[in-house]
């Protein structure tokens, strides 16, 4: 019996499975492989992996279906693998409950970084309070004080507006993960808000000018073009 994290790879392309399996095993993860959607669902049920890496283009079913089916009963982190040209797929996958994505073709370091973030979130979920004992999120010179509802850069108040604070604190709660435009808008302006990217963009532009030293080279909040925003991991 070991206590390594188990990862289920759902992918039909043999050579891709082989390279992912090699690097994940080499980095001390247990690897399970499913070649199609049906097998994947079966294995999620029987093995309860700690994480799923899911290719959206499967031979027998749409990968989005698998996300839906799994999310009905499990919060296991799902990392989606998709081709570059299908931006919409990524957004849909994230909105359906996937945790993160990598774009084909991806390098090993990128995949491993995503996996580590995902694993950290399993730990984080059960022990969120312990991870931030004083109710403060810290990343570099940036800190988000959830009690005082203030954001500090270099110890100085960044003077965010209410909405700006909401955006930053939401991103920091999910630090390391991509939040889609839609998710952010719904959580900040409400479920019935009109889908309007513009307001979000304008607010982000203001936030960037308040917390980033160089808005063209951000250190804390990154843009995932066409998908959403990602906050840098906490220290």
């Amino acid at each position, binding site marked *: 019996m070991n206590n390594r994290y188990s990862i289920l790879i759902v992918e039909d392309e043999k050579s891709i499975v082989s390279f992912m399996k090699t690097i994940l095993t080499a980095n001390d993860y247990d690897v399970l492989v499913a070649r199609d959607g049906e097998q994947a669902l079966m294995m999620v049920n029987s093995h309860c992996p700690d994480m799923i890496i899911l290719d959206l283009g499967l031979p027998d079913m749409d990968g989005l279906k698998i996300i839906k089916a799994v999310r009905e009963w499990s919060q296991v982190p799902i990392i989606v693998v998709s081709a570059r040209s299908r931006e919409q797929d990524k957004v849909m996958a994230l909105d359906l409950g996937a945790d993160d994505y990598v774009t084909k073709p991806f390098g090993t370091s990128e995949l491993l970084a995503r996996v580590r973030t995902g694993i950290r979130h399993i730990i984080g979920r059960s022990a969120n309070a312990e991870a931030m004992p004083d109710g403060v999120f810290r990343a570099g010179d940036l800190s988000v004080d959830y009690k005082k509802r203030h954001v500090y850069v270099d110890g100085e108040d960044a003077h965010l507006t209410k909405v700006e604070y909401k955006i930053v604190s939401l991103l920091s709660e999910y630090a390391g993960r991509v939040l889609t435009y839609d998710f952010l808008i719904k959580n900040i302006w409400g479920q019935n808000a009109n889908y309007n990217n513009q307001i979000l*963009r304008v607010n982000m532009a203001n936030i960037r000018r308040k917390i980033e030293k160089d808005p063209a080279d951000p250190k804390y909040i990154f843009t995932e073009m066409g998908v959403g925003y990602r906050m840098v991991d906490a220290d």
Partner: protein
Amino acid sequence: MKRSLLRQQASRPIVSNVLRTLFFLTVATGICILLRMIDNRDTYVPMLFILFVFLVARYTDGFWYGVGASLAGVLLVNYLFTYPYFNFNFTLAGYPITILCMLVVSTATSMLTTQNKRQEQIRIEAEKEKTRSNLLRAVSHDLRTPLTSILGAISAVIENDRILGSEERLSLLHDAQDDARWLIKMVENLLTITRIDADENTRLYKEPEAVEELIASAAAKHRKRFGEPPLSVSIPSELLMVPMDAVLIEQVITNLLENAVLHAKGADRITLSVRREDSNAVFEVSDNGAGIPEKLLPHIFDGYFRQNYEEEGDSKRNMGIGLSVCETIVRAHNGTMSAFNKEGGGAVFRFILPLGEEY
């Protein structure tokens, strides 16, 4: 080929075809009725109908509408314009033959026009095919070099497992990695071209995007791949929103930056800048290298300049296709692209995108 043409012809909605047919028939009938008020002879009636059946065949898809129109025309003529009026009568001497002639003539016309249309389609199709195969030839040539080097490097590692030191092995694998990356880039560019060239009225997925986000994202990716020469970035202090397909424009910037790294000889600095000029956003990638050779400038976005310009010998990194992709993308955004040399030395690639209505 034939099947796809037929499918294309059927693409115009049936409703529009039917409406056209009805319109021409009504006009023909109307003119005949008007003419009969002036002149009671009806010799012109079949002629007029043949003319309008011809028009139907010309302005509808496929020949069934033409055939239908000629049949309807025959019945209309018989019903409305031959004695006894408002009755069908196929027994009158001579009339069956007139009617038969009209049917044959109009059907033949319809079929001829349809055939003409098909030939036109085939001609356009053939022209597209020619451009495509030209591109394909240029690309295949470009793909062979990196593929050979990848295959060579990997074979060397596999077949000389015992002999190679870890340093040599790593260096071979690094080369293979570089070439594989370059291939990916090339394939992405090709996908983009097919996406845009597929039909003329390409619908880009355009949304207003914040320029600073685009620039930051492209610059970050670039810095991750190339450490040298350093990239400096300048953006306007105001928020600039430009309607665009962000993935494609990011690709343009990435291509231009990479072009500067690989081709600007002697450059120790690359600059990426955006500024607003009236109702346009002006993007510039510039370097302080040797600049673009004068004789290359007029053809720099053609994509095929490599064939005529071989000074560097067998340089494998041909950006010709990359640059022509950039230009295609920018043009699809109703923008313009240009390349020139700076006075103090170095090349500038500039593209301009319109800001849209709000400004």
